[in-house]
């Protein structure tokens, strides 16, 4: 690209939306606040009970002693529940020019970018959304926001809610359980194959970028669904803490793919618990891209509970200035002949830090299981840092477990070769980085893959231009 990027290295892709809300809880979290949330949503008594219990666990549990530095989170300074009003019809033209420019350069379609920017493109989207909803409901697929899910299918939610990630799992799972709001509820009946990826931002009937999202996906026997959350476009958030919980149940022979592209602005702590329970011959695939946020701690997990269950985690992390991406994956083998694969690619530049943290655990009796973990890291300059912390706990001898990790810089020969062909250094570097993450990017839906490549290019330009 010949033109100089209008975006400086410090650019955070952030923008403000004026706040409009009809209900906002007080700062900080006490038991009254938790009760109020439940009351406000007219929830069944059992959910209130869950929230209250989880709040007790949250106050008792300590922060994790490992991983990123979380000591600067001010739990008392956070609004835990905000009920938004109807979206105000701002005009696309009213957005700061650099934001419009970023969207243009990433190449987001007109209708989509208006929606992402929070301006009123709802008419166009609503048509798309309704026709998707119609074709889904014909097949018996439920795709709702979590609050509506709880209202319309209380029994189904009650049966599965918190079964994969109990409140006591960790401090942030407890926090989420006590104050959750928003997220998605997906139910795919037996044998149903959902052809189109379900995208969270089509769900426009509720606030879709919650602070404490709670997502529950149930894939019945032999079904298939691909769920996509987030987007490559930068999302500005005034909330400093995002703590989602995602629970997925993959029944016998079913397959679920869950794709996340996270690009929060650089003031956000993104502390997420994601876990899938996979039954016999089921397959779970996590595709996880982390580009934004100040601190991310996220380790999508697969619990392989039935024979021949399979789990895959593909993870990309990109850390720029003042960012720490502590990401990875977990595979826990409980049953025989289960297989898992974790592939992680990370890039750190401009003082950023990426860490791979992972676990492969094999329980006694899980004969003939196989697991392979591959972590590759690129460090682009001498102020950046990269760490790898894998753990393997193998309690069964009939297994085959492998782990490999490599940390390196961009090869001088590669750069030299490209430069000798008349390609500028920044362009050559972004080509190499895009090539490095290609094995994961090609698993993304096409439009995301294109956007991702452009975004990496944009970020690289800012750094070396």
């Amino acid at each position: 690209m010949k033109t100089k990027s209008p975006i400086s290295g410090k650019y955070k892709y952030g923008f403000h939306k004026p706040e409009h809300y009809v209900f906002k809880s007080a700062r900080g979290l006490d038991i009254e606040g938790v009760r109020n949330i439940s009351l406000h949503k007219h929830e069944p008594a059992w959910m209130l009970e869950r929230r209250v219990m989880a709040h007790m666990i949250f106050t008792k549990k300590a922060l994790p002693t490992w991983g990123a530095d979380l000591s600067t989170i001010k739990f008392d300074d956070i609004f835990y529940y905000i009920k938004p009003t109807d979206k105000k019809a701002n005009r696309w033209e009213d957005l700061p020019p650099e934001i419009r420019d970023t969207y243009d350069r990433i190449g987001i379609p007109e209708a989509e970018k208006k929606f992402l920017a929070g301006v009123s493109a709802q008419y166009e989207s609503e048509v798309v959304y309704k026709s998707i909803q119609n074709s889904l409901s014909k097949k018996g697929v439920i795709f709702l926001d979590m609050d509506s899910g709880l209202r319309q299918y209380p029994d189904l939610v009650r049966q599965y809610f918190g079964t994969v990630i109990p409140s006591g799992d960790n401090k942030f799972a407890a926090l989420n359980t006590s104050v959750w709001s928003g997220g998605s509820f997906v139910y795919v009946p037996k044998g149903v194959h959902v052809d189109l990826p379900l995208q969270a931002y089509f769900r426009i009937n509720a606030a879709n970028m919650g602070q404490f999202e709670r997502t529950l996906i149930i894939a019945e026997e032999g079904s298939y669904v691909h769920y996509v959350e987030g987007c490559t476009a930068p999302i500005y958030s005034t909330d400093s803490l995002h703590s989602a919980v995602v629970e997925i149940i993959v029944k016998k022979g079913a397959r679920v793919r869950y794709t996340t592209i996270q690009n929060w602005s650089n003031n956000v702590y993104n502390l997420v618990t994601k876990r899938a329970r996979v039954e016999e011959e089921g397959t779970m695939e996590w595709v996880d891209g982390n580009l934004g946020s100040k601190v991310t701690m996220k380790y999508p997990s697969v619990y392989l509970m039935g024979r021949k269950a399979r789990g895959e985690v593909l993870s990309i992390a990109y850390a720029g200035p003042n960012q720490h991406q502590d990401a990875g994956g977990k595979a826990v083998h409980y049953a025989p002949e289960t297989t898992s694969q974790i592939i992680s690619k990370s890039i750190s530049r401009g003082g950023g830090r990426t860490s791979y943290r992972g676990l492969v655990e094999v329980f006694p009796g899980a004969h003939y299981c196989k697991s392979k973990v591959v972590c590759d890291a690129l460090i682009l300059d001498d102020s950046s840092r990269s760490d790898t912390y894998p753990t393997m706990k193998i309690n069964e001898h009939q297994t085959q477990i492998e782990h490999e990790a490599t940390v390196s810089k961009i090869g001088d020969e590669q750069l030299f070769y490209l430069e000798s062909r008349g390609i500028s250094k920044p362009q050559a570097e972004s080509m190499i980085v895009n090539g490095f993450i290609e094995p994961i990017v090609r698993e993304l839906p096409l439009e995301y893959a294109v956007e991702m490549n452009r975004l990496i290019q944009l970020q690289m330009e800012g750094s070396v231009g």
Partner: protein
Amino acid sequence: MKTITGRSIVVKKVAGGTVSESYAVGKNAQLILVYVVDGSTDTDVSPSVHLVGTGASATIISLISGSAHGKIRVHTLQHHVASGTTSDLLVKSVLRGHSEALYDGSIRVDASAQKTDAYQRNENLLLDEHTHATSSPALEILANDVRCTHGAVVKTLDENELWYLCSRGIDRDTGRDMIASGFLKSALTRITDEKDRTLVEQKISEF
């Protein structure tokens, strides 16, 4: 802390108890450190190697045979302080009976240690049903012009290899022992200098 200048080959046998030692490898110095661990009882081995002089290099090898209820802990540190330093670590264990191997080790590359080449590998061969292996390797890299690689493998005996030996008239138990000892001994090929390797092999055979 022992300071290494020039070339130094250290071969130690450890059977039970705790061995904790650290080495500082100076400018252009070379350290070859080999532990032969008889892990029939609880054994801890914790070497730390600090590469403090430019051009320093270290090869660290542990050969572990676990048996009975032995619990073998190996805790290693490859700490690159100076630039142009090389470290190569291989921890191999063969586990029998109810034995358990716990490996945790780090490669730490300081910002001052550009042009570091570091390698770390842990391999475990689990022969019996009640054996356990836990492996926690870690990389902490603060410099950018480096190459650091680590790997870990936990596996069981390859039935095809055993079948091959049996087809050549070797009974199963002998075949198992042959594969296990070959698995351990192959670690010594990490020592690239043939004379050094012969010397180490000789010392091991004297144990």
